[in-house]
């Protein structure tokens, strides 16, 4: 029952964000270029872009506003244009909210939003050249990043009963 509940939460969350991504909002940033490339994929992993679900494969280009998802046994690793590394473990959902790397114009920004699962992040040049412009968000917190590497685990909503069964619904 616990398992079913968390699946429902996940599906509603996914549907909600899926809807957001097809909401017709066009990013004002240079939306005409990819921002990252998939370097490693294992198991089930997909990219959701403007209503379409694309299987993640090595070499696939990632764009701003893409949602990255991994299945129960999936993992994925991507590299952004500024050498930021981002990888996800199984059962994870993450959105590329913003990515701007334009050194000639002095414009830098990276904002990643993690909904659930596990992820590892290694700062690239945006964090080195403009430390206040790199942010990683979870449902509960915003993480400001100063040139570094960290890992984040985001749990789904749990009822207290979860502890007794030892099932964290991952």
């Amino acid at each position, binding site marked *: 029952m616990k398992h079913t509940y968390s699946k429902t939460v996940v599906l509603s969350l996914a549907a909600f964000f899926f809807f957001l991504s097809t909401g017709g909002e066009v990013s004002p940033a240079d939306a005409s270029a990819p921002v990252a490339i998939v370097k490693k994929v294992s198991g089930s992993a997909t990219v959701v872009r403007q209503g379409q679900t694309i299987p993640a494969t090595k070499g696939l280009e990632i764009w701003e506003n893409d949602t990255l998802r991994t299945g129960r046994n999936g993992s994925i690793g991507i590299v952004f244009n500024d050498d930021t590394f981002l990888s996800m473990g199984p059962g994870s959902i993450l959105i590329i909210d913003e990515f701007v790397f334009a050194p000639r114009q002095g414009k830098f920004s990276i904002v990643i939003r993690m909904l659930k699962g596990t992820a590892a992040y290694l700062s690239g040049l945006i964090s080195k050249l403009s430390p206040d412009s790199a942010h990683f968000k979870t449902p509960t917190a915003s993480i400001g990043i100063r*040139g570094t590497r960290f890992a984040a685990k985001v749990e789904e909503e749990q009822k207290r009963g979860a502890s007794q069964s030892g099932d964290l619904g991952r």
Partner: protein
Amino acid sequence: MKKWSNFFVGWIFFCLLTGCATHRAKRDLIVLLPDPDGKVGTITVTTNGGSQIVDKPGYATEIEDLNKAPVAPKPVNEKEINEVFGPALSAQPDLSNRFLLFILYFEHNTTKLTHESKDLVLEVLRNIKSRKSSEVYVVGHTDLVGTEAYNIELSSKRASYVRDLLLSKGIKPGALFVSYYGKSRPLVPTKNEVPEPRNRRVEVIVR
């Protein structure tokens, strides 16, 4: 199975401590790790309830609730890091083509490189040439001695000095991106007016 019992124990312990209200509890965990070259940065984790800085490798902060401040950082043992983050860490892309970061140090109040840094310049050049790099960032800084205006000027001069040095050795102007930040971004945080040789620097990033 061992993995689950670790969490089982942790979760129960957690519930007992807080007297576990019947509201739903989320627990997010954020662990700071060292960079591949061993350096450690800083993360600031902010919820509606407050902020927490984590600046020691292997230390983590937990978030129980979005309206509560993150928990004070505690060390996480390597085994747990591997259990929780193993798949995410092993999906990390290959490091070999990443940018290189060099730090050139200066004598106090000058645009004079330290002795060791003069040697490092040769290595910077060697790497730019072997990578045929067309993207080299030169970023000037100072320590916190002196006014902001003074140090903006000094950091600019330091960055320009390094730029000119690289140009004189044949690096193309189009490959160089020069910036400077005065005293606003010390590598080693200090109080104002505290001299710190490690902050008197130009960072050169070679892609």
